[in-house]
């Protein structure tokens, strides 16, 4: 199997170069490069164990010693920087003696079980023993670590200290790469040993199981249990993680069609060789026994499922859709594209709907997460996307995180952000809750935590803007040259009104005015300030207003158009950006072009050879309304679980029950499928080719590493359905779909599979103007028609969801590191070891008032419904605010969320629900009835599988 080259030490970013000679060969290397790396660059491999290019050099193993002409002794090549004219010798008798002496010491405290060792074939210690020619261990060791006890507590990897060589690579990876500092060396001298936490088991320590230590370990000490069970992989395929919007590049290391392990790709431009517990380890769901691999149909959701052939399932689905259209009209059916599927698949689903269904009833789950981002950034900047690449954060001096929790939600980017914060960047956290970045990440703390009341984002952002404008902190040059000046002047007058002042807003937001002013000052005055935000911004009744307010802040302070600054939405799912780009919204064709626009429509009509509707279709909530009205009767839902993820879930369930044909295409019988009539088995990201686009607009390859369990990839299923409906699709490979996308989407003109293969990944826009893509947008001009950034007014309007004596607390939601979204994937992995149920965080004061202690069952009642969770009393939330995650369907978090939504995009107001909390003894009535329903549906599935 091809192994990634390890240069021993990280690359130097210096532009100045140095010339030297190594073993008589001339080398030129950037200043600051280690002698080891310079040697590796010309193919001279100096023996090494403690050095690896993912962490800073340490100089402890002493295998890499070299001699330097005119220098004393034998310096370690990993810690010796190159110097002009330096002459290095890497091999001679004296060096060989020292290396062999060191290796003899290592092996005097190492088990001699290479043949049965899990690292056999992938062990650097073994390689180095071979390289230095160790033939004998002359010591008669008495004191050893050979009887050290294994720690098997982590579900994914084992820790065998008897094989540890104390190179500290794991400790350094935990510190430098992940930033968790869970590992240390305990004891000193010969007693030195790797210790999770304070001599705890891995699972009891602060370890977040990101895998960086396992990745860094040169021996079998930290080893994936999958490798212990199955042996070394034999080939590797580079692909992209299907979890969050960071879009980490991975090597799927395989044995035939079996994934042995997922290893973060060092060349991955989003993750640079780092990973989190989900992408690194939680891939077992892809082959979980719950996978449904045969198509199924039934005429009523009360009926048992019947396993059928693909032909029959597709024909049935098509006939039902045709029947419904014949009976209820052309617009009575629609579909939902998935932010988890590939760009190509998403593109195909919306094409099927627009061209095959003949209407624009297509929407995507971005509706419920980042639709305000699309709206707000399109309006102000001219493009519905974040402005930066992830690496930009390493140039930031101030980082403002609003309504996002990167260390849980976007952990790999969170680690990069923490690295920058440890280097001294200042941090402003705007969040009702104390996320880990505030003060629970080692060596990181927020300079300002603006702990606002949920639902008051706009008031707070306005107060920041007020401070910037009235304290003369505006970057006038930037505004004059880059922005629409008339809009700015209007905004300046608007925002300078007294009611926007931090003092006036304090009673709304609960944030002390002085804190707001201080934060605004550093944001406006430090060299590079960047904003990162998440669903805490968008999922509000004023989500779009907040996004616009953020854009205004960045423009007013000139924090756009270069590295270190920008407006950065952190996308929740792997392909939220992509699904939006691909035209998943009912009013927009691919590339965010309005369906009502004649010229655009003509372009697509010509390409697709069909007449297209110019009327925007239904958004997801409208589909539900229409279903209950009796005018929307058929739904094709690919890779989404609206029956769990959408707000006011009882309403959603009623709508689904009202439909005559619900077609679900998914890898599992998800919650939505329990209401379905046709089930088309989907394929996991490991089973198909395609691309995902991450939060930094990076189009990354998804590669088929195994055959689809259900025979077809999702794009093939969509194509079959389309053909059955009479709209022909004849793609033979997803690359052809991408070629079609590139031909229709101006920002994708130069994108092709060939180019992606060549570059590894591409950040759009990638066209003649930017042939190799665009890491940072709006560098010269904005993408609006006149090239100028537009300021828009952002009046604060309080949400209708108000606290009252009946509902005195505000519930807000978030997610946790080990689980992902609705949990369909992660709940089917060992990640449940970290988080096996959703809990309700409640402040000690509120808990005390209600006699609640941690672990109690509490009823959560809102205007929409009621559910029950166990309580976790915590000061992370402020008094008056309760918080929960929503990873488990039985939690029913969306039973209580309301149908309030963003004024512009209908993005649900998930983040603000007025509730009352009471101590209870039983699950809620909804939970009981839903449990019964679920059980019944699983029985109906079993019937199908027994008969099939």
């Amino acid at each position: 199997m091809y192994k990634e080259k390890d240069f021993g030490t990280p690359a130097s970013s210096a532009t100045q170069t140095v010339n030297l000679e190594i073993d008589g060969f001339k080398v030129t290397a950037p200043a600051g490069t280690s002698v080891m790396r310079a040697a590796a660059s010309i193919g001279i491999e100096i023996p090494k164990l403690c050095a690896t290019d993912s962490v800073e050099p340490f100089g402890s193993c002493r295998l890499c010693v070299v001699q330097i002409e005119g220098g004393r002794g034998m310096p370690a090549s990993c810690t010796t920087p190159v110097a002009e004219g330096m002459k290095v010798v890497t091999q001679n008798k004296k060096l060989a003696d020292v290396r062999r002496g060191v290796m003899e010491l290592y092996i005097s405290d190492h088990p001699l079980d290479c043949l049965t060792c899990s690292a056999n074939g992938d062990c650097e210690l073994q390689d180095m023993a071979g390289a230095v020619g160790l033939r004998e261990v002359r010591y008669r060791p008495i004191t050893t670590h050979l009887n050290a006890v294994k720690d098997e507590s982590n579900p994914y990897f084992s820790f065998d200290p008897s094989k540890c060589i104390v190179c500290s690579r794991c400790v350094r990876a935990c510190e430098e790469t992940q930033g968790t500092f869970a590992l240390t060396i305990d004891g000193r001298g010969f007693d030195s040993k790797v210790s999770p936490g304070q001599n705890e088991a891995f699972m009891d320590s602060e370890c977040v199981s990101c895998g960086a230590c396992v990745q860094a370990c040169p021996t079998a000490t930290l080893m994936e249990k999958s490798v212990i069970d199955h042996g070394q992989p034999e080939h590797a395929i580079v692909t992209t993680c299907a979890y969050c919007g960071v879009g980490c590049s991975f090597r799927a290391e395989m044995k035939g069609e079996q994934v042995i392990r997922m290893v973060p790709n060092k060349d991955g431009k989003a993750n640079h060789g780092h990973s989190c517990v989900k992408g690194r380890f939680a891939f077992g769901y892809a082959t979980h026994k719950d996978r449904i691999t045969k198509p199924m149909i039934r005429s009523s959701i009360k009926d048992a499922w019947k396993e059928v052939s693909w032909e029959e399932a597709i024909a049935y689905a098509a006939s039902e859709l045709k029947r419904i259209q014949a009976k209820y009209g052309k617009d009575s059916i629609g579909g939902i594209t998935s932010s988890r599927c590939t760009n190509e698949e998403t593109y195909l689903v919306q094409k099927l709907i627009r061209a095959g269904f003949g209407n624009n009833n297509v929407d995507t789950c971005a509706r419920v997460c980042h639709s305000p981002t699309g709206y707000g950034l399109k309006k102000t900047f001219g493009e519905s996307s974040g402005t930066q690449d992830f690496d930009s954060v390493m140039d930031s001096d101030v980082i403002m995180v609003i309504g996002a929790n990167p260390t849980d939600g976007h952990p790999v980017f969170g680690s990069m952000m923490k690295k920058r914060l440890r280097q001294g960047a200042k941090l402003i956290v705007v969040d009702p809750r104390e996320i880990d970045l505030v003060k629970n990440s080692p060596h990181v703390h927020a300079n300002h935590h603006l702990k606002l009341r949920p639902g008051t984002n706009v008031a707070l952002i306005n107060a920041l803007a007020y401070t910037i404008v009235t304290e003369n902190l505006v970057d006038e040059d930037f505004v004059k040259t880059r922005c629409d000046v008339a809009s700015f002047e209007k905004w300046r007058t608007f925002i300078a009104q007294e009611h926007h002042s931090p003092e006036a807003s304090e009673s709304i937001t609960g944030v002390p005015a002085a804190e707001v002013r201080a934060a605004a000052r550093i944001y406006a005055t430090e060299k590079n300030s960047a904003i990162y935000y998440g669903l805490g911004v968008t999922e509000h009744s004023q989500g779009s207003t907040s996004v616009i307010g953020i854009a205004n802040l960045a423009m007013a302070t000139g924090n756009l158009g270069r590295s270190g600054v920008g407006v950065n939405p952190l996308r929740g799912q792997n392909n939220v950006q992509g699904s939006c780009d691909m035209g998943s919204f009912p009013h927009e064709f691919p590339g965010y072009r309005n369906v009502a626009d004649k010229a655009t429509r003509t372009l697509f009509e010509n390409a697709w050879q069909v007449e297209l509707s110019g009327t925007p279709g239904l958004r997801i909530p409208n589909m539900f309304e229409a279903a209950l009205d009796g005018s929307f009767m058929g739904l094709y839902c690919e890779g989404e679980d609206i029956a769990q993820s959408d707000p006011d879930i009882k309403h959603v369930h009623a709508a689904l029950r009202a439909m005559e044909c619900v077609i679900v295409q998914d890898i599992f019988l998800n919650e939505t499928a329990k209401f379905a009539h046709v089930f088309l088995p989907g394929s996991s990201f490991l089973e198909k080719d395609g691309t995902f686009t991450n939060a930094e607009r990076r189009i990354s390859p998804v590669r088929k590493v195994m055959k689809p369990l259900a025979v077809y990839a999702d794009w093939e299923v969509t194509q079959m359905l389309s053909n059955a409906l009479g709209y022909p699709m004849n793609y033979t490979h997803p690359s052809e779909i991408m070629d079609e996308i590139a031909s229709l989407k101006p920002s994708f003109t130069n994108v092709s599979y060939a180019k992606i293969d060549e570059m590894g990944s591409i950040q759009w826009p990638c066209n003649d103007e930017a042939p190799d893509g665009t890491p940072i947008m709006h560098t010269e001009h904005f993408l609006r028609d006149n090239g100028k950034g537009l300021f828009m007014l952002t009046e604060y309007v309080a949400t209708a969801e108000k606290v009252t004596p009946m509902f005195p607390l505000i519930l807000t939601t978030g997610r946790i590191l080990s689980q992902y979204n609705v949990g369909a994937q992660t709940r089917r992995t060992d990640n449940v070891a970290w988080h096996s149920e959703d809990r309700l965080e409640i402040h000690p004061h509120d808990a005390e008032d209600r006699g609640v202690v941690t672990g109690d069952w509490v009823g959560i009642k809102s205007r929409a419904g009621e559910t029950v969770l166990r309580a976790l009393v915590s000061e992370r939330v402020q008094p008056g605010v309760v918080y929960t995650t929503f990873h488990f369907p039985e939690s029913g978090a969306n039973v209580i969320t309301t149908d309030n939504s963003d004024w512009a995009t209908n993005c649900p107001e998930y983040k603000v629900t007025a509730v009352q909390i009471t101590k209870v003894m039983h699950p809620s009535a909804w939970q009981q009835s839903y449990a019964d329903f679920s059980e019944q549906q699983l029985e109906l599935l079993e019937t199908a599988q027994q008969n099939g």
Partner: protein
Amino acid sequence: MSITIYVSADSSAVSLGADRVAAALVKHAQERNIEINLVRNGSRGMYWLEPLVEVEVNGERLAYGPVQVSDVANLLDSGLIYGRKHPLFLGATEEIPYFKKQQRLTFARVGITDPVSLEDYVAHDGYLGLANALKMNQTEMVKHVTDSGLRGRGGAAFPTGIKWNTVLNTPSEQKYIICNADEGDSGTFSDRMIMEGDPFVLIEGMTIAGLAVGATQGYIYLRVEYPHAHIALNAAIAKAYKANYLGENIQGSGKTFNLEVRLGAGAYVCGEETSLMESLEGKRGLVRFKPPLPAISGLFGKPTVVNNVISLASVPVILHKGGEYYRDFGMGRSRGTLPLQLAGNLKHTGLVEVAFGMTLRELLYDFGGGSATGKPIKAVQVGGPLGAYLPESQFDTPLDYEAFAANWTVLGHGGVVAFDDTANMAELAKYSMEFCAAESCGKCTPCRIGSTRGYEVMDDIINNVDREKNIVLLRSLCDTLLNGSLCALGGMTPYPVLSALNHFPEDFGVDA
């Protein structure tokens, strides 16, 4: 008229009973209605005479010692306060040959003044170095130190002026001065003596260092095993702040220098400058690789002077009397004086500050008076636990860095520990490995594993298990330690081991 009596508060003197003697003096004098002014000074460094009681008579200090509590009444009754003869009477302190033959530049005030009296310090030429320094620019200050030829007294003997110059020329908004007061070498005590006996000289030296290189913050990294020094330093620092010798705008100069004492946690390796800085930063005492040099990227990544106590305490006299004055002492490239510490099996243990150049033999016999047991001196370990053992054939080596290096021996911090002919050198070699194993920080492989293996190999040699093979293995291990170790702990452990083996093979059961 009150009589001034001096009893040392030095911890060695205290361990020999000085506190009890002082208390007895006060009590018995009171009983006799004798008004005495008791001063607890530093030690004169003649430990075999401690507790030493000095009485000032007509401006001259006369000595009695060693004094036990049971002697006190008798001494007073015999006319101690008039300097009358007594079996313990030693005459004028400064005429005692051991003391008289020394050249005390750095230790000029130790044993003479009240250690924590700023007035006393100033009255004995204290702060004259700083006064001169304040009249100079930074380059001139550094030049005096460079000209003096002062080399690091901690053991590495790196030219102090060059180190200071590097820090001076490395631009940074913050620089630091660190005094390495983690004096962990066995048989050494000069740092302790001066910190207990004349803390102001260290404070003055650090202040000058700070002014010279542009550092505004200094730290004294003091080993926790020195509680008396801790008290003395803190008392002196408080007085220096109060009198504006520390803090902002020192003596109206507009210059700032702040100083505080930080305690170690008992690790020998934290006397190594890079692990010392790790420890100061609040981390595990793990050795850092170099480069970067601490002078360029030291404490918290800032340019840092790390100097030993004696190096810094030698700075005031250099700035007071000029680099040339100091340079006039010594030989070859070893300039000035070295405070040597005599310990182990010697008659006259104590501190001897002399110019470089005297032979080891003179030191052992003329000062040390030969072995305490009267048996022949078999070997002398110079330079602490990592120093080589010198056999009698090397006793004529002059005390000079280069002359010692030529013998594959080291002067180090000037600790001299003598052994008589009952010492078994193989056991001592095993002890060296044991010491290394106990004190290794555990970072580099040779030291982490090699020291433990070395101990085991020595055990086999001593027990005659595969002795010949194990001698070969021991030499090969020493080679790995010497060439492969990250710092001097592993890198120098072979010095005592191999010198013992090479000079005393018979103790290892090997034919000479």
